[in-house]
């Protein structure tokens, strides 16, 4: 015979004549014994016929959790303390009143500690997925010779695994940039200033020297690399195209200063990496001018 149903108190109320009810009110040792025996050998341990008095006792004892903590937490406590967490299913093999409170507190405490330790173990695993020291080191600056670049030409160098474009703009190209001021979303590079445009490039041409544009050739939408459409003239995507870049993935457009056109998927201008001129023909990408 198993003790089924909610708390021992409820059980006792429902089954006043059951030998289990008697055992509920028994001394601790007997209760533990009963629990160990699945309450099956109760009759030999307990006095037949329940004491109304002792039923009240056990009732007040177990009801107090619900009273003290409210129904939800009372249930939680019941869940944690009792192996009879799903009372109506009759999972329990023992009488709930056979609880050794001190031991149960220890079980809860060690379960909490164990749980916390398990969660903490996830940290090194998650951290192992961050860029490694080597990947961080590869973010080192790149030195580029731009002496061979003719006006109107573009070169691509790799920095941090990303394409960085260096475009030597002609006078006409610079004129065209002025014309696009009304078409672009952020003409003065005011959005996400620190991240996208260093202070020294926060001008109409988005560069230190107007002639040379240095930008990361990665679309700010979803990271594709836009294509050159440097020459002005009608294009499928814009009949009054004044030169710039076209992203094949989702159709974003950028002008010759890497400024994004309005109403395009890309939210921001192309990123200008930190860079500095080492001489007239050499630039260092990835590092600003050393603060003297």
């Amino acid at each position: 015979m198993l003790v089924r149903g909610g708390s021992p108190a409820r059980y006792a109320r429902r089954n006043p004549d059951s030998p289990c009810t008697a055992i509920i009110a028994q001394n601790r040792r007997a209760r533990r014994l009963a629990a160990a025996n699945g309450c099956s050998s109760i009759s030999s341990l307990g006095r037949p016929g329940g004491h109304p008095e002792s039923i009240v006792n056990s009732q007040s004892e177990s009801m107090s959790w619900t009273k003290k903590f409210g129904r939800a937490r009372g249930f939680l406590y019941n869940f944690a303390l009792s192996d009879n967490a799903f009372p109506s299913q009759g999972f329990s093999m023992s009488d709930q009143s056979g609880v050794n409170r001190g031991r149960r507190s220890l079980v809860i405490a060690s379960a909490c500690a164990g749980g916390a330790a398990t969660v903490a173990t996830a940290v090194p695993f998650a951290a192992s997925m961050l860029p490694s020291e080597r990947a961080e080191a590869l973010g080192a600056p790149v030195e580029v010779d731009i002496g061979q670049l003719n006006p109107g030409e573009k070169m691509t160098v790799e920095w941090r695994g990303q394409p960085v474009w260096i475009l030597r703009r002609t006078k006409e190209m610079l004129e065209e940039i002025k014309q696009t001021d009304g078409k672009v979303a952020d003409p003065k590079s005011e959005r996400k200033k620190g991240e996208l445009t260093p202070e020294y490039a926060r001008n109409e041409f988005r560069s230190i020297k107007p002639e040379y544009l240095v930008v990361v050739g990665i679309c700010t939408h979803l990271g594709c690399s836009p294509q050159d459409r440097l020459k002005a003239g009608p294009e499928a995507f814009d009949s009054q195209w004044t030169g710039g870049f076209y992203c094949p993935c989702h159709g974003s457009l950028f002008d010759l200063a890497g400024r994004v056109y309005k109403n395009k998927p890309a939210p921001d201008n192309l990123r200008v990496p930190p860079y500095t001129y080492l001489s007239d023909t050499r630039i260092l990408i990835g590092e600003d001018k050393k603060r003297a």
Partner: protein
Amino acid sequence: MAGAEKQAVTGAGPFNGLLTWIDQRFPLVETWRKHLSEYYAPKNFNFWYYFGSLALFVLVIQIVTGIFLTMNYKPDAAQAFASVEYIMREVPWGWWIRYMHSTGASFFFICVYLHMFRAMLYGSYRNPRELLWIFGMLIFLCLMAEAFFGYLLPWGQMSYWGAQVIVNLFDAIPLIGPDLAIWIRGDFVVSDATLNRFFAYHVIAVPLALLALVVAHLLALHEVGSSNPDGVEIKNVKDPKTGKPLDGIPFHPYYTVKDTFGVVVLLIVFSIVVFFAPEAGGYFLEHNNFIPADPLKTPAHIAPVWYFTPYYSILRATTDEFVLWVLAPGVVAFALLLVWSMKKSTARIAVGVIAIVLLAGLLNLDAKVWGVVLMATSVMIFFFLPWLDRSPVRSIRYKGPITKTALTLFVIVFFVLGYLGTESVTEGRTLAAQVGTAVYFLFFFLMPWYSKMDKSLPEPERVTWK
């Protein structure tokens, strides 16, 4: 002991002794009966009921071919592309195993999409099969993850830029986005670190989850029993003598034989693709993926593989104008509809608050964020089907004209979005995708109302033959 009480196994000829020995130590007979020989499935399964077992069969193909591919593949950015070519050209039968795997990926999605469509046709997700449906949806998510991770491995141009675009979707999440994207990649761009970890996900992490979910899916199915094209419970009418459902037949041998026939037909079609059209015109294996990955140059036209294109279309359709003129008014209209149909004032206030928060977000955050949100919603919304569908009947056979029209429209839109996702962007195509996106979401969001008001026919007592 319980084992000793078991009856000896009979009918297995010379194996009776061995099977009895096992059965006394393992629930062999019990399991066989519960899941096969005494699992009663409705007798009126039709064509649509092939695709569950076929999906399971394709899963086996994928696992077996996958194991053999890992024997020669190298998850290293410097060697991956060449190792795939090595498998294709120099490993004996390597080309066959690789084409089976790549074709299997597409066939897996074909089977799963048809399996899901079956559930939508016949209301298989309805009470008490909600959890069965949820397990199925989790399998679908795992499958999408598996396909996405696997697609990076050949390290071709489409592999590389596809992964770049999808990982950058996480970048759109406010605040944590950029760091999260770096954590996923393990680098500042898609690189060797990314390839290596995607390999780990693809060959062990996701398959383990997938298999566990398949088991849960089958256990849940056998707990509640299979639905059928009439959407009526066969459990309701039982033979009073035997207690077996009158409209049920044992899964084995009846449906094992039927499903074997399905497997044979599938293998014929599968073989035709593997041997004669493994690239399927660029739909199963994209042309650009035969070019090694180049981090400095995006291909002129990039598109995901066909099974992701409907969601990809939704992502691309979400422009600033779409957010302003369609999404924002849509949120307002839907909130009003909810408030109108709700009785509790607290619920009404909650809807109002959520709508205002959403509206503020729509008007302030980038369209990029909402594109990602819509794309995620377009997949996750399937989870809620059991609660969105409020029709008194399950099967399309007894549902009314509104539901039939809605489902037809949804299927058309799903195909149109899928097609548009494979094509490059033009103004006209964007507009079409935006209309499609709107219809796609209306199908789900209005379902609680149209499914309830629709005029349905009475369900039969017993299953019918049609």
